[in-house]
Every structure is written in structure tokens, then in C-alpha cells.
């Protein structure tokens, strides 16, 4: 059975960006948010540290913009960064008005703390549950506004007709039915693709669905080679240890009990931006000053029981549960892990893509405000600022455009694909392909890169793509067929891994999170530009410069 439902706007993804976009759609339009999980399972809820906004009278949004641009190693589009930072105080107070409880200063105002690469303590936070607190608020607002949420619907492709968006094709997970959702406008807010790495802080659902679907629909992906590695994750499962810990004053030590950040960022030390701290840790480990098992130590002990238990309660709980370590008395082992993708679906500063009717916001989009390296506590801000922008634009688009007929052949094609992979399960199951992909990316497209490693990665990824084309699944059922879902996600990840690697090979310089051992310097003459990839190949675009001329990035 293939049902077709009609909407004005479909939002794919129910995290912060998607929910914020949906709230901005004109109330008289028919909007639905589609999520492959229950909305509250979205990864936004895992964000711990904070949301940046220049709300203190001593602070200025222009300084926030400068820190963001410098943090991006000058690859951010400066007009977009300015839009975001100027809007930030409004965002924070809007969330407070809707009920988010931020932590307080003694005088009763919203408290703020330091985050990496910020020249001023401007991260507003809700203990170490900032993402969850913000998300709960938006979820409540979505209930108040009676927004339709299609839960456990897995969107697999963007339908187009006559050069514009016609809707999406999805699988209802509970029944296995292929469903077409016709819409005049589609907003993609599906988050990142961390699952292409073995060591990642991302959850299982972050398989880059939206990015890959947009790419397959011919929409360019921008700056995909820039992958953020978070400096502090627990070795083994790579659970995130919030940057808030270093913001509160935690130290990093190597095996010789040196605070090694002195050598890499003497001024900012542990609160230098993430790319710098991650590389510092990797360097310590590779030069033999780490511990067996590839880690260094994060020491919170001097912060005292009160701060650890109240402001950093989650990492206290994690360390105890997963490592049996009590951070009040013992330092925590940490190593870098994949965390965030600066790149994504290319949009303008209002969330519009090149495909009429298609918008994107949040981690899956590259506006680009994060450039070559995102600063901590700027991603929650990004979701709320640009989610809203995408909602405004989609509403306007729907008002002006009557929409196009849904191409029903897309549904048949999807149904045929499912039948084919079920039959192919007797050949190679996809599971091994997925595991090899994740290992390859972690080993060869990580914190430090060079031509031989990247070439090897590209060759492996392409070989895996060939195997994938012949592979299949074991589960022949329809209800909750996670085997099928994971198969489709693996296809998305393979597409994206290739683009990440091709971009990393072509960018023969080191900038932000992209560190080439064979090209250690930034090369503005050749590479102060965005790489845009479509199935037809690469084209470049200039970076928008407004007030801040590129300078050497030192902390």
C-alpha cells in the first residue's frame, strides 16, 4: 500500500532545528514534522554545555561574531555569522519566555560561562542539560501549537518535479509501508552523519540522511571535509565529556603530569577551540606522552564536589557508570572523537538551498557560520536561529507557489528497491560494509590527514560502495525492520564519506579542523573558498567577508 498525504510544509527531523522551523510556519498552513524516532529521542537533547549570546551589558554581539569568525579560521560567511550573533540574545530570551530554565547568577540574571575560543564568558546554560532543557521547551510549544508529528517515519528521498520540491518518500517503520508525503516545501533538519566514524559521540540515528538525500536530488553539499573532533570523549564508547568541564576550570594532563596545553595555546590553555585541543591531545598521544589505550587525563578534582555534582552531574554519572571512576577523587581518561560536521547542505543565510522549495537548518546545513571549525555553544544557537529562518522562508515560498504534482513513480521505485535488497540478503549482508566504513574513516580521515592516508580511504570507500550495490538484508519482515533501515542509512553514509574524503584530498592546506600534515599552513590565496559538491562534481564559491580580514589564528 502506498498512501499519499498532502501538506504545505514537511519538516524532516524533529530536533531543535526542525521543531523551531515548524513553530515558525504560519499557523494556517498544513505542516508536519517527520521523525524516524520519537521526537524526544533526537540528538539535540544530548547537548550539554550551553548556548552563546552576548546578553551581558559588558559584552557585544559584534565580539561574538568576531570570535565565531576567527574560530572558523575565516571560512565562515561573515554576513551569516553576524546575523546569528546579533539574533542570539533574542533567541535566549524567547526560550526563557517559553519556559526554559537557565542557570542563574547571584543577582538573579541568566548565568554565563566560558567556552572554547570565546573572548568573553557568554554561554548561557541549564546546568549540563542545556540541549534537553531547550528541547523540552520547544516540544511543549509544539504541543501547544498542535503541530502534527509523524513519529517513526523514516524519510528516504526527496521527491522533485519540474525543478522544484514535490515532497518526500518515507517508510512507516511500524508497518513497513512506503508512504509519499506531498508538500510544496520541505525543510531538512536531520542533523549530522557521525555514524560514518567508529569513534563518535553521535548516536545511531545520525546517519546523514538529509544531506545524502539532498545530494542525490542534485543539491550541493558545502565544506564537507571539515569534521569536528571533540577533544574529550570517554575511550571505548566515546561518550561526550562536555566542554563545560574545561569551561568550569578542569585541567588536561599527559602521562608526565604536564598541563600540556601550555605548549599549544598558552593564553587560553584548556579552553582553546576544539580543533586545537584535539590536535594537542593526538600529538601528545602519538609522541608517547599519552596513556596505554590512547588517552590523556581530564582532572576535575580541584573544582570540588559541589560543582562536579551539580553543574557537571552528567559526566559524574557517566564516569561512574561506564568507567567506575569517581571524578571527585580521580581524573577521567579522555580521547578525541568525531563530534560535529561543519559542512552540510549549502544554504544561503536564510536557509534556502538551490532547489526551489527546499530549505535546510541545523547541523545538516552549511550556512556557513561555523566555517572550518565550530565553537562550542554555537550549535544550539545555530539550530534556533536558522531553524526559524527556514520556517519563515518556507512559509513565504508556499504563499507564492502552488506546488507541483507528486511523482508517484518515486514510490514504486522505493518499493522495488526494498524487494531487491530483501532478495539480495543471501549474498552479502551490509553489516560488514558499515563496520569497515566506520573503521576506515576513523583511521584515515581523522584529526590529522595526508595524501597517502586520504587516497587509501577513498579507494576503500569506493570499493565498499561497489560491494554495497550487491549487498542485501536478512530480515524479510515489514514491522520494525531495522535491518532495512540500517541498510539504507549505510548507503547514505557511503555517499557522504566519499565526499568528505574527496574534499579533504582537494583541500591542500590546513584550516580549522582540517589538518593536513603534508600542507601544514593555511593558504588563503588558493583555498579561502567553499567547496560545493554535487553528483556532477565540484565547484567553488568565495567566502563572504564583511568586516573581518583574515589574520593568523592564534590563542
Amino acid at each position, binding site marked *: 500500500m502506498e498512501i499519499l498525504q498532502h501538506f504545505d510544509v514537511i519538516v524532516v527531523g524533529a530536533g531543535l532545528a526542525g521543531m523551531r522551523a515548524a513553530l515558525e510556519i504560519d499557523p494556517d498552513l498544513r505542516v508536519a514534522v517527520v521523525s524516524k*524516532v*520519537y521526537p*524526544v*529521542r*533526537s*540528538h539535540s*537533547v*544530548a547537548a550539554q554545555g550551553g548556548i552563546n549570546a552576548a*546578553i551581558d551589558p559588558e559584552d557585544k554581539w559584534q565580539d561574538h561574531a568576531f570570535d565565531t569568525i576567527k574560530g572558523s579560521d575565516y571560512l565562515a560567511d561573515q554576513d551569516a555569522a553576524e546575523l546569528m550573533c546579533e539574533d542570539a540574545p533574542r533567541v535566549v*530570551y524567547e526560550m*526563557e*519566555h517559553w*519556559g526554559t*530554565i537557565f*542557570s*542563574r547568577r*547571584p543577582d*538573579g*540574571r*541568566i*548565568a554565563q560561562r566560558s567556552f572554547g575560543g570565546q573572548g568573553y564568558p557568554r554561554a548561557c546554560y*541549564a*546546568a549540563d*542539560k542545556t540541549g*534537553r*532543557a531547550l528541547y*523540552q*521547551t520547544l*516540544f*511543549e*510549544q509544539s*504541543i*501547544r501549537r498542535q503541530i502534527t508529528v509523524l*513519529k517513526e517515519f523514516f524519510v528516504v528521498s526527496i521527491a522533485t518535479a519540474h525543478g522544484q520540491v514535490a515532497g518526500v518518500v518515507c517508510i512507516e517503520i*511500524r508497518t513497513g509501508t512506503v508512504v509519499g508525503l506531498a508538500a510544496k516545501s520541505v525543510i531538512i533538519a536531520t542533523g549530522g552523519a557521525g555514524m560514518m566514524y567508529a569513534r563518535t559521540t553521535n*548516536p*545511531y*540515528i545520525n546517519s546523514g540522511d538529509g544531506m545524502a538525500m539532498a545530494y542525490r536530488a542534485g543539491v550541493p553539499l558545502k565544506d564537507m571535509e571539515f569534521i569536528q573532533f571533540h577533544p574529550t570523549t570517554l575511550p*571505548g*564508547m566515546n*561518550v*561526550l565529556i562536555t566542554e563545560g568541564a574545561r569551561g568550569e576550570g578542569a585541567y588536561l594532563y599527559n602521562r608526565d603530569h604536564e598541563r600540556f596545553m601550555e605548549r599549544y595555546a598558552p593564553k587560553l590553555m584548556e579552553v582553546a577551540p576544539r580543533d586545537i585541543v584535539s590536535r594537542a591531545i593526538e600529538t601528545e598521544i602519538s609522541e608517547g606522552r599519552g596513556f596505554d589505550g590512547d588517552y590523556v587525563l581530564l582532572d576535575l578534582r580541584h573544582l570540588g564536589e559541589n560543582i562536579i555534582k*551539580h553543574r557537571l*552531574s552528567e559526566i559524574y*554519572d*557517566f564516569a561512574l*557508570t*561506564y*568507567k567506575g571512576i569517581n571524578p571527585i577523587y580521580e581524573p577521567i581518561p579522555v580521547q578525541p572523537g568525531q563530534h560535529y560536521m561543519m559542512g552540510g547542505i549549502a544554504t544561503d543565510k536564510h536557509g534556502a538551498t538551490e532547489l526551489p522549495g527546499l530549505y535546510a537548518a541545523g547541523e545538516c546545513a552549511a550556512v556557513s557560520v561555523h566555517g572550518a571549525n565550530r565553537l562550542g555553544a554555537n550549535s544550539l544557537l545555530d539550530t534556533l536561529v536558522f531553524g526559524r529562518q527556514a520556517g519563515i522562508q518556507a512559509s513565504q515560498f508556499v504563499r507564492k507557489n502552488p506546488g507541483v504534482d507528486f511523482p508517484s513513480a518515486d514510490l514504486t521505485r522505493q518499493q522495488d528497491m526494498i524487494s531487491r535488497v530483501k532478495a539480495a540478503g543471501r549474498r552479502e*549482508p551490509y*553489516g560488514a560494509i558499515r563496520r569497515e566504513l566506520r573503521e576506515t574513516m576513523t583511521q584515515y580521515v581523522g584529526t590529522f590527514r595526508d595524501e597517502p592516508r586520504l587516497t587509501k580511504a577513498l579507494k576503500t570507500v569506493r570499493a565498499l560502495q561497489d560491494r554495497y550495490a550487491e549487498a542485501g*538484508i*536478512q*530480515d*524479510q519482515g515489514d*514491522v*520494525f*525492520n*531495522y*535491518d532495512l533501515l540500517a541498510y539504507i542509512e549505510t548507503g547514505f553514509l557511503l555517499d557522504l564519506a566519499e565526499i568528505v574524503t574527496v574534499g579533504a584530498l582537494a583541500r591542500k592546506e590546513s584550516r580549522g579542523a582540517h589538518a593536513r600534515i603534508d600542507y601544514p599552513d593555511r593558504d588563503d590565496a588558493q583555498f579561502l573558498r567553499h567547496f560545493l559538491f554535487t553528483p556532477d562534481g565540484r565547484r567553488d564559491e568565495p567566502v563572504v567577508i564583511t568586516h573581518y580580514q583574515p589574520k593568523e589564528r592564534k590563542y
Partner: protein
Amino acid sequence: MSEEIVLSIFRGDAAGGQEVEYRVPLTPGMVVLDAVHQVQAHQAQDLAVRWNCKAAHCGSCGAEINGHPKLLCKTRLDDYVGETVHIRPMQTFPIIKDLVADVSWNFEVAKKVPAFQPSVPVPFKMQQFDVDRIQEFHHCIECFLCQDVCHVLRDHNAKDQYFGPRFMVKMAEFEMHPRDGGDRVPMLAHEAGLNMCNVTKCCTEVCPQHIRITDNAIIPLKERVADQYWDPLRALFRKKKAPAATGQSVQG
């Protein structure tokens, strides 16, 4: 040869089913979810189980391990050495397939709770002391293990009479917000069925986030209901707008 752990996992759907045994090699620090993944990868690709973040953030993987409601991702297998680990879906909700239960009733209840209503314009001035207790409630990951264990919902299936512990926490979050202007006490006394809870604290015991649900949410809310409905002085002055609270607590 490394040590093995025996998992006995429920396989089936609403029409019925039974536990099936799987053997998985035990590695140090392994959690139940890791073992279930091993089964899914190598022995039963058609095993249905919800999971996502593997770090007790997302609340997806609630199930019953040897009869106790727990998160698969936060339960270490070294607690069960020498035992067979029985894994079943949450029993309070209808089963869909294997370990996947239909928890959608909870989201229907969520729709009944009135949203925050600001009593003054932003920016708010509030003391950390006053928001501390609400920040405890932010720890909730909506895994619904508290709903699963609550005997009002589980044994008496009184889903039409009580919202359950999760939504007492939610309503406490709003009621205790220093800048909330709403009044949910009438709802607590009637539709939400707060009186159905007889404070056995089972919900607090199973909460993987260590929220003191009974002491910090339910009891203070009960006090508010008592203040408004049972205080003789207040009763005297109260306008006859709302009927007195009804509903008896059930014995667990």
C-alpha cells in the same frame, strides 16, 4: 576461551511469543545493549529493539531485565555474571515486536499538560536556589521506566485515571517555576489523578537519572492539592468553582 553470557530475549508480537536463548562472549565493561547488538549483528538480524545514543541520553532502550525496568545501555553485564539475563519489553504498554513496546500513550498524556505561562515579561530574575529543584527534573530522559513500574498503570491499568509519575514530574516543573502564572492544581486533583499515587516510591527506585520523583515532585504536588482542597480554612473561603478532589489511592 572467553567467558560467555546467556541472554534470553523475548521474541514475538501482540499475538504471542517466547524467550529465545542467545550466547554472547562477555567483554569487560560490557552493557546489556552491547550484548543485544551482538545478537542482532550475528544471530538474529530481525530482532527489533529501539536504541539510539548508547549513553543514557535519549531514553529509547527501556526494557525489563530479569523483571526490573532498566535502560539496556546503562545496565552493566558484570552485575549478572553466572545468571541468565532475561530481557523482555516493558509490560505496561502494548507490545509491537520483540523488545519494542508501543509507548505512544505517554505522548498522548503529554498533550494534556498545559504549557508554561509566563507571569511577567522576560528577562526573568530568579535565584539559583529556586531553580535548582526544577533543574533536577530536567534530568528526565522520558524513557518511561517510571510509567512502566507504576502499579497504578501496570497492575491496575488505570491509564484513564492517572497520568503517571513522568507527568507528575512534568507538572511539578511548571508548578515550581518561579515565573509560571498557570494553575495546574485542579488538573492534578482531578484529571491527572495525583491521588491515585500511594507513594510506594517504585518510580524513584527505577529512575535511571536518579530523580527523586516521589519526594521532590509527587509529594510537594500532593501538598499543594491538599492545601487547596483539604485545608478547612481555605475550604471555607474557597469559591465553589471546582468540585472536591476525588479518586482513591490504590494499594500496590
